[in-house]
Structures are given as C-alpha cells and as structure tokens.
C-alpha cells in the first residue's frame, strides 16, 4: 500500500472538520427521500437539513446513493 500526502491531507481535513453533532448513515438514509424531494422542487435542503448535508459530504457511500437517487428521479421527470 502506497500512502500519499493526499491521504494524509484528507485525514487532517476530516479531523479538522469533526463536529460535536453529526448524524450517522441511518439518520441520513431516513431523511434522504425528503431531502431529495426538496432539491428537486428547487428548494434548499442544505439549509433545511444541514446535518444531512454535512453527512453527505463526509460519507462516500451515502453521497453515492444520493447522487444515484437524484439521477434516477431526474430521469423519471414528471412520473415521480
């Protein structure tokens, strides 16, 4: 395994950004459908649900699911 300064920098950023209040993957998943409907409606879920937004920035798995869900629903358009 080759470590890199990029990995170390990412770790430092993650440590620096650690907050007292964060939510886990379960809470994020629980609120993801509401979050994404706000997004599709042109509202600002980032402001309404900052903890979900924060988790999506930190957790790659949840972010990938958010992006795929957005892709699915945008393609379905008026069917949603």
């Amino acid at each position, binding site marked *: 395994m080759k*470590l890199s300064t990029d990995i170390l920098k990412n770790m430092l950023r993650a440590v620096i950004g650690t907050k007292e209040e964060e939510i886990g993957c379960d809470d994020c998943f629980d609120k993801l459908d509401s979050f994404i409907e706000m997004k599709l409606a042109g509202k600002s879920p980032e402001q309404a649900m900052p903890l979900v937004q924060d988790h999506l920035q930190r957790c790659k798995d949840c972010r990938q699911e958010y992006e795929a869900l957005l892709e699915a629903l945008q393609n379905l358009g008026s069917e949603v």
Partner: protein
Amino acid sequence: MLRWFNKNKKTDKKAPYTNEEWVELLSEPPNGQAVQELRKFLVRGLKPALSKYVDRELDQFVEDVAQDALLKVLDNIHTFRGDSKLTTWAMKIAVREGLTVLRRKRWNNISIEDLKGPNADDDSGEIFSEVFSSGSPTPELTAAQKMMVEKVQDIIQNVLTDKQRKVITAIMIHDLPVTVVAEQMNTNRNNVYKLVYDARKKLKNEFEVQGINPEEMLNNLSGE
C-alpha cells in the same frame, strides 16, 4: 420469496396513486397490478442511475435489483411515514440495494484484515519519499513535514483502538466503502460510521493535547 398477491384487492385506478392508495395497495396481501407498476417504475429509474457502474447486462441486473428492492418495500411498507412520495421512498431503497450489490462485487476479493495501515513496516517511508518529492523548496520544510507525518502516524498507532485503526485504514486510506467494511466486521454502516467519528474526535483531541495545530500542518503539507 413467493408472495401471495391478492387479485381481489382491486383498484379502478392506475398509477400515479396517492401515498395512501399506494400503502393500501402494497400492504398484505399486496395488489398484483400495483406491485408490477412499482416494479416498472423502479426499473425505469435504476437504469440511468446505475448504468455508469455496470459494464454489461445492465437490463438483467436492474431487473434483479428491482425485484429484490420490491420485496424490501413490501416487507417494510408499514414503516413508510409519508415524509416523501412513496415512489421516492421506494426508489431510495432500490438505489441502495443496487449499489450495495455492486460494492460487494467490486470488493469481494479484499479482506480488511489484510489491509496495511500507516505504520506497516513495508510502507513506512513511502509517505516520506512522496513528501520529499512533492515540490517542497527547502530541506528545513521537508524535515518539518517528515516530523509531522511521523507524529500523525504515532498518534494513529498509539491513541486509536484496534477497531478504530482498522476502519480508518480501510475507509480513509484504502478507500473501501463503509458498506463493505460493515459487512466484513459483521456490523452495520451506522456502527462503522460511529467508529470513524470516534476516531476523528480522538485524533482531534490528541492534537490539542500535544499542541498540534492540524490546520497549520495541512498548510505545511500543501507547501503553503
């Protein structure tokens, strides 16, 4: 899993249904027509959402995922609270189902027990060589960088628990999905995320105790 579809629970309508109608139609025993409408909806959404991750037989893969997701939706229909449209909630479940299958396939030959951490003998020094070759202009700075890297490695080695070090190594160093790490540790994503969170907090606290400023360290590593 076979499920008894109630052909007698009839509806004159076709989708789109209201949430209340969906819940009524999908509750035991589920209405066959509504189940098929939801399945087709999931397939139509999953195809564009997963196409970039699937290199062959996308149609079959999406059909399988939709079928598995549908069973989860039916099993959990009583937990739907109506915070969103039912179709959005169902698609959320389907997308997670599909990506979970893909993550398992992608990482099925990797064991987190075999991953090397930042202090593994055979890679100690690689990070230093990269620091030295990263364009730092003065020997003083690279020496300082080397000390910082060693310090962080020491802290990771000595302050974190074995489990915390394992998840940090797998997720932050080797970029494994949380889903895969959780399955290999026989736990769930939430617990793994909590381990990472606790590790981050511990590192942050230890930096403070040792008088290390991580922002300054980050700037120095970036050569700023």
